[in-house]
């Protein structure tokens, strides 16, 4: 965005940093120092601490946690959460984006806010709503009990909670991309005889793929990392309803700090991978913008 291209620069005198305005030299240094100090206190020291604590007693304790059955179960359950929540929310997000992005209608902003709503709701309140709906004394409680289906304090409720909190990401990332590319190519494809499916698969999808992937990565990170909402509906039973984020809290409360940090370091690695992919995708979309 900031680059106006070489042809533009030729006519405008180059205004480099401090070229026209003799700034006091120490101001940037002080401001940068304050920014880095603040970020260190809030982000970097805590992040570094995760890795230090996990490996300070040697990699032996780390690997000892990795083979614990309750840890392995929690890790598998975490993967399961993402494996269900991500495809569901990708399907929804794509439908919502295709339905909303290209149209102007009254109340459009309102519909967009509704899709974003799960982000404004406290995860605990999200969990509470699921308990009130599917719990024993909830709306569907007696019907579910009669047919012997457990949702709350069981895996289905945790899936519902995970889906809820990670719902908006895909729609939110894909809608602006669809708005920007416009409908010309799709209309051309349709005029040339492509059906809806072909148009979507061959024309729309290739042009939104990076935005979509970005949404998928964010959905996945949230689905694997969600704690609050899942904690409310899970009951937190080891080897039954415990995901990795819950395992971290539970082991910490039981003074098994090493185990907590071993699991935490894996989740922190997930966060780092997420950020790296995010950065790569942002760069890819930015390069596309420039062209």
């Amino acid at each position, binding site marked *: 965005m900031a680059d106006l291209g070489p042809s533009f620069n030729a006519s405008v005198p180059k205004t480099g940093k401090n070229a026209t305005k003799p700034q006091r030299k120490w101001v940037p240094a002080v401001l940068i120092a304050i920014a880095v100090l603040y970020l260190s206190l809030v*982000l970097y020291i805590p992040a570094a601490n995760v890795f230090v604590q996990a490996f300070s007693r040697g990699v032996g304790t780390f690997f000892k946690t990795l083979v614990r059955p309750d840890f392995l179960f929690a890790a598998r359950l975490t993967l399961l959460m993402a494996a269900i929540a991500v495809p569901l929310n990708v399907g929804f997000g794509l439908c919502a984006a295709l339905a909303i992005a290209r*149209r102007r209608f009254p109340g459009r902003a309102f519909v967009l806010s509704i899709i974003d709503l799960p982000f404004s709701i*406290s995860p605990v309140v999200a969990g509470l709503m699921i308990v009130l709906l599917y719990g024993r004394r909830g709306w569907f409680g007696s019907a579910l009990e009669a047919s012997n289906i457990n949702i709350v304090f069981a895996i289905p409720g945790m899936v519902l909670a995970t889906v809820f909190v990670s719902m908006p990401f895909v729609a939110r990332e894909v809608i602006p991309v669809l708005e920007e590319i416009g409908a010309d190519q799709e209309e051309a494809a349709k005029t040339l005889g492509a059906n809806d499916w072909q148009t979507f698969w061959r024309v729309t999808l290739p042009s939104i793929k990076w935005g979509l992937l970005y949404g998928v990565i964010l959905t996945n990170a949230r689905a694997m990392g969600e704690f609050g909402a899942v904690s409310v509906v899970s009951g937190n039973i080891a080897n039954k309803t415990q995901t990795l984020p819950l395992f971290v809290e539970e082991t910490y409360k039981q003074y098994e700090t090493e185990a907590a940090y071993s699991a*935490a370091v894996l989740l922190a690695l997930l966060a780092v991978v997420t*950020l790296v992919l995010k950065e790569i995708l942002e760069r890819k979309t930015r390069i596309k913008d420039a062209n």
Partner: protein
Amino acid sequence: MVSSPQVDEFQKPPARKTFLTRLAQVPWTWRVTIGYLSVMLFLPLAAMFLKASTESPANFWRIATSPIALAAYDVTFTTAFVAALSNGLFGTLIAWVLVRYDFPLKRLFDASVDLPFALPTSVAGLTLATIYSDNGWVGSLFAPLGVKIAFTRLGVFVAMTFISLPFVVRTVQPVLTEMEKDIEEAAWCLGASDFQTFWRVVLPPLFPSILTGIALGFSRAVGEYGSTVIIASNTPFKDLIAPVLIFQRLEQYDYSGATVIGVVLLMISLVILLGINLLQAWGKRYG
């Protein structure tokens, strides 16, 4: 609830149709969207509001304003507000530094700002509780001064600051990038001091986005559970926040208590959301 009247503007064929044929013509993308939202979002919302409506207003009011609840709101909102303000100040500074200056590893600093979005909140709570405890890396610096951070309200503040950090930076950064440097230079040429230039020229156009970022961060901090529950001692009247109170009520099978406080929290979130939308509209008019 949404679609039929809105769809027909792009469905050209004749205007006279019965409601049912119109309904059949709602594109399937809309049907999936509305169906999914109904099951996943509207149904749970309805369950909570209906549960709350079974309480008599007097009872609702009694639970919502019980001393323990009032203390929890106080801790939640005051602390979230201070954390959001702190991020408002330092987030703007970070955005400024990232946009205007060049320094080594700048890209890495920039990317790392999003860490709180990606790091699971229980991990954040765990590591913050360790570092800010009395014998932790940072906590031990404050302990001799008699300042305890972890397991007090200050700990809640630290956790809330962590999770709401990216919002202000990410709302201010794009506005700052788009801003023309010429105006600043003009102000400076006309004799304004650095401070005047910043206060009168740079800050006003940034203001809507700073406020939006503060509101977004505040909203996130108010609802936060994972990191705050770990770093706080969760003692009523001291550092018990509203989401933790809801959780405790549920654990005691006090569904009415949980629901009432949940509804209060949700209504406040909706008001903040409305405020954010208005702020964003204001920001657009400015740009």
